[in-house]
């Protein structure tokens, strides 16, 4: 049990996907302007990352490994993840068209999102069992969600800030993300 807790703390705080591993920066910057949209994105990412962890684990251990096709990992994973995101996209368009419009391009972008790919590959690298892999995928997406929600709050403040012209917009957002990442360094070695 304790190992699951450590996985969660590790993935959410210590090795936060966004702020420590620097994965998934694109939706992190793109969808952090409004809290409502950010929450929708969090939901989508949590679903995609958890499900992708499960599916890619099964793919790796039940299809690729027995067949000796470990080298096809990247291609196979991309295939599965892309389909998954498409599925979420279609489902969301049907059930929550407003949110779909707000997420815009960023939803399909999860397809090529390094965070989803990263969690799938890390699962294999860290030799996690199926349950651990799913927990890790879920925790990693929680970490993404945490970073995104914190950043959305900050974003509303810095959008009303008054930076010099060269730093307006994404530039100052990146500086803020850097400072936030600095703050997350405090969690370093919380879990070894």
């Amino acid at each position, binding site marked *: 049990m304790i190992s699951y807790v450590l996985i969660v703390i590790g993935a959410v705080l210590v090795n936060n996907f966004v702020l420590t591993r620097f994965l998934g920066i694109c939706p992190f910057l793109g969808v952090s302007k409004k809290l409502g949209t950010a929450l929708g994105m969090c939901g989508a990412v949590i679903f995609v990352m958890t499900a992708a962890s499960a599916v890619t684990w099964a*793919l790796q251990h039940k*299809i*690729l490994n027995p*067949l000796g*096709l470990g080298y*096809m990992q990247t*291609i*196979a994973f991309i*295939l*599965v993840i*892309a*389909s998954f995101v*498409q*599925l979420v996209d*279609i*489902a969301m*368009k*049907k059930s929550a*068209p407003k949110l779909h419009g707000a997420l815009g391009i960023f939803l399909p972008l999860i397809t090529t999102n390094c965070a989803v790919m990263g969690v799938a590959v890390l699962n294999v690298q860290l030799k996690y069992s199926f349950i651990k892999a799913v927990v890790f995928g879920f925790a990693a997406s929680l970490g993404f969600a945490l970073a995104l929600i914190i950043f959305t709050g900050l974003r509303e403040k810095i959008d009303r800030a*008054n930076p010099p012209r060269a730093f307006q917009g994404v530039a100052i957002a990146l500086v803020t993300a850097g400072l936030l990442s600095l703050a997350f360094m405090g969690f370093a070695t919380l879990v070894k």
Partner: protein
Amino acid sequence: MDINNILITSGAIGGVGLTCGTALALAAKFLAVKEDPRVEAMDEILPGANCGGCGFAGCADYAKAVVLDGAAINLCAPGGNEVLELIAEAMGQEASAEEKRVAVVMCAGDSEKAPRKHLYNGVADCTAAAAVAGGDKLCKYGCLGYGSCARVCPSGAIEFKNGVAIVHPDLCISCSACVRACPRNLIKMVPVSKTIHVVCSSKDKGPIVKKACQVGCIGCRMCLKLAGDAFEMEGFLALRNYDIPVENELIVEKCPGKCIVKCGASEAPSPEATEPTPSEPSTEPAEATTEGQT
């Protein structure tokens, strides 16, 4: 290389792909949402400046309105005739070309010529200043100079010179955002080829205007006498009738109120257009939004 390896690989990956594809196809069928492809096409045509000049909330909204609600097709001013033709083609309607209109500020009372009546201390915004004791300019029709129009201008065409707004016609994209922003309704959209304007909006009688501003219309009707139908009177204020060309340009020099000016397309309409290019960089009122005038 073992042929089996290739077969297994392609079979496995193909199988996975097939499964995913089938799932997607099913989802697309059962969860399909109907959409009018023309809306998207229309969105592509529009410039995407989201200036709101058409009266809709951005280009996408206008695109929807044109395609679905049959809104007028000639509302996109920044797009000009080019976009109009494309929209007309897409909608199968006739395009009626119109001359480009640019914004002109109908006030030339700068800080030297039009005095202030009190010391305004508050938000540097025209609407806000106008709401406190009726605005701080002695002339109750004149430009307050707090830059509300410049802040809404999407193309940076409005400059403040000596406390009065000036629109640069070649930068103006005809969106009318400034017209809506001005609390004193000083900005008018006029055909770009017309260069002679009455730059005063004061409806007051002559003596009051004279006291409040050195370049105000005193209602002497001189312009009507000299240039005939190109001008008309509304109470004590001369207005330019842009449908009729000004034949006698002498009026620019003869106007006793010095409020009739001529300015070319590349020049800003200033009574003394001595400096076609501003000597100082355009002010950035956005940075001074809350600074009081001290």
